[in-house]
């Protein structure tokens, strides 16, 4: 498996660490209810198909990426830097 890092280009999977669903990036507002925080922390979709995940390019540029891929076909549709492209 290879992932295309927006900064480094196509790289081997061993350079990356998987974190989990990309929904973690969308934090609730600071004044959100306990239930909203609980849902954000604990509830995950488990799709058979397209999913968006966070990957860390640990052994490369150190960027966090959102990788959109298919859990059934293993096809990778695209990668993007978390936080846009400031300070790269």
């Amino acid at each position: 498996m290879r992932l295309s890092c927006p900064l480094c280009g196509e790289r081997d999977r061993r350079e990356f660490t998987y974190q989990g669903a990309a929904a973690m990036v969308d934090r609730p507002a600071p004044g959100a209810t306990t239930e909203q925080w609980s849902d954000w922390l604990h509830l995950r979709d488990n799709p058979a198909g397209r999913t968006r995940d966070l990957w860390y390019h640990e052994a490369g540029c150190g960027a966090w990426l959102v990788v959109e891929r298919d859990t059934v076909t293993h096809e990778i549709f695209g990668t993007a830097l978390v936080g846009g492209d400031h300070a790269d």
Partner: protein
Amino acid sequence: MVELTAQTPWAALLPVTAGATGLSAWDPGPMTALMPYRGRRAALSEAMQAAHGLGFPDPGEVTAAPPLRCLWTGRGQAFLMGGPADPGLSAQAALVDQSDGWVALRLEGETAPEVLARLVPVDLRPAALPEGRTLRTLCGHMTVSITRAPEGLEILAFRSMAGTLVHEIADAMRLVAGRAVLG
């Protein structure tokens, strides 16, 4: 006053030659990590131009104004090498001294990419990594920075990994040289 003598981490490990490849150490001198504050990348690059005559490198790029060089080393991070950084740059970026935290190797010879192909999961042949380009990747399990310079491939790694790094690369050099002898 005690006079301290700087020691290299290599002891008697270097240089190593095997077949058409040579591995040697070089002294990167003062090194400073430059990490621009949010939205200050362009301002940092301008300040660097004014103070040192080189800009902040794009991903994979090396900027140079001899004897200084600035190596891209990650997202929002570059290393200024070859001399001290102007303290005025700290208005635009976090500056962290890296001197002596890293060791530098040079792998020379046409078979250098072939040697590193055994350890590094990235294509390092001149077509893929031309002169003046740099990248971050793995060498075995160690994170490294690899740059193509006129003399060969330059490898930066954490000083604590120095012995292991030489061991791994020297082994790969001997194996590639052995294959060449077998034809």
